[in-house]
């Protein structure tokens, strides 16, 4: 074991396969790193149920821990509580914006009754990460990965992605 380096510190360096500018810790999917004797158990939670990157995250975590001198490392999946974009750290939001991806606003508040239907454009449009304008238009709820939506800025005419709130 490398003296002075905790398993948590190692796990926190591992980056997300689909948003490589963020660490898994920035993204909020790294839930727990437990050291018990020589065994390290890392708990991660999926952003979306079908997220195909879970296996890669697990392999990257195990590989990083092995490399840092933790040969006995295991990754567990936790489903509850479900991941929310509110868990993306302040540093993570800055890194997203710097990469031209609009960070999420606050996630929808939990409701007790039926979930309200959204038929029209959002009254609170996403700000363009390039020019900062609020004159943007949603192109599609679904982008290159499950967690991103597609938008276009009417001011600077640039398309951009947004980590959509869940």
């Amino acid at each position, binding site marked *: 074991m490398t003296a002075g380096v905790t398993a948590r510190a190692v796990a926190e360096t591992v980056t997300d396969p689909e948003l490589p500018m963020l660490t898994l810790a920035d993204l909020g999917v790294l839930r727990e790193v437990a050291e018990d004797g020589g065994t390290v158990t890392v708990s991660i939670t999926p952003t979306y149920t079908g997220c195909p990157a879970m296996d890669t995250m697990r392999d990257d975590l195990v590989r990083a821990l092995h490399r840092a001198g933790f040969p006995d490392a295991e990754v567990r999946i936790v489903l509850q509580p479900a991941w929310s974009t509110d868990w993306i750290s302040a540093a993570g939001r800055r890194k997203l914006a710097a990469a031209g991806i609009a960070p999420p606003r606050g996630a929808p508040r939990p409701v007790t009754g039926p*979930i309200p239907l959204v038929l029209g454009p959002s009254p609170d449009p996403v700000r363009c990460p390039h020019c900062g304008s609020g004159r943007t238009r949603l192109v599609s709820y679904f982008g290159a990965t499950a967690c991103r939506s597609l938008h276009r800025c009417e001011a600077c005419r640039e398309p951009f992605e947004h980590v959509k709130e869940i």
Partner: protein
Amino acid sequence: MSFDNAYEALSDSSDSSAGTEDNDGPNDGPNDGHWAFGTGFTDPLAGVDTTVPADVDAADLALYSLMLGDDALIMSHRLQEWCASAPELEDEVALANIALDLLGQARLLLSRAAAADGRGPGEASSVRGEASSVPGEDRYAFFRAEHEFRNVRLAELERGDFGELTVRLLVFATWRLALLRRLAASRDPVLAAIAAKGVKEVTYHRDYAAQWLVRLGDGTEFSHERAAAGLAAVWPYVAELFRGHDVERRLAAVGAGVDPAELRDEFDEVLGQVLAAAMLDAPEVPVQAGAGGRDGVHTGAMGSLLAELQSVARADPEATW
């Protein structure tokens, strides 16, 4: 950037994306996971406690998980058929994303079924799978016969045009969202967790389909006509969604499942809102009565769907890649 450099950048992707790490010993195997996402065959419930609550019948819970998992699996398959056929690239990406969300829900639900009832889906059909190392979710997806699938028939109907797809997705997502929202309070912690996650996803599916139906219904004469035709095609299969099966009612009675009969009011309220905005009316069509998908009775479309879904796994059950 020259073409050579671009090529180099691609082939060195593991180094560049790991550039934020300070480790100086990256030589324990190529980090190629960024391009092909592993095998995808690991247990999606790895490390999750799948103990069934003491007063919940494990066989019922397994069958119920199959019902909800099959709905997602079969609907996902039909959505996947839209890859390379959607009217716009953005919608192709959207439908693929929705299909992926549902496939993820199916994997968890089929794995939950396998964990609740280790015997597999019936002795005759599971012999082949059980003799091998095929994971539970794959055994259910690839080695069951048609009558063992418990999905509602709405999910399996032959692919129609984009108008039909829009209506079917709206109906399916509205119904499933109402169901999952209630299931998030299930006394089975695994189902509750899967449902709570699914609520967030299916909310976007429903809004996507609802907004498209308004565009079509309140669009041109032709788009309105296609949306109306879609409604007429799908509507006979709506009543089945709320009919319920004994297993669903038994689990609802112990607080582990949801009786779909109680979803109808919420469904009608949401559909009423969308149809009014889309200037469409719910059609007067005869309802498909009798036994349905929850009893393993399917339409003619199911056989060819399963043939496609299962053919590779059945040709070589031991295959890995």
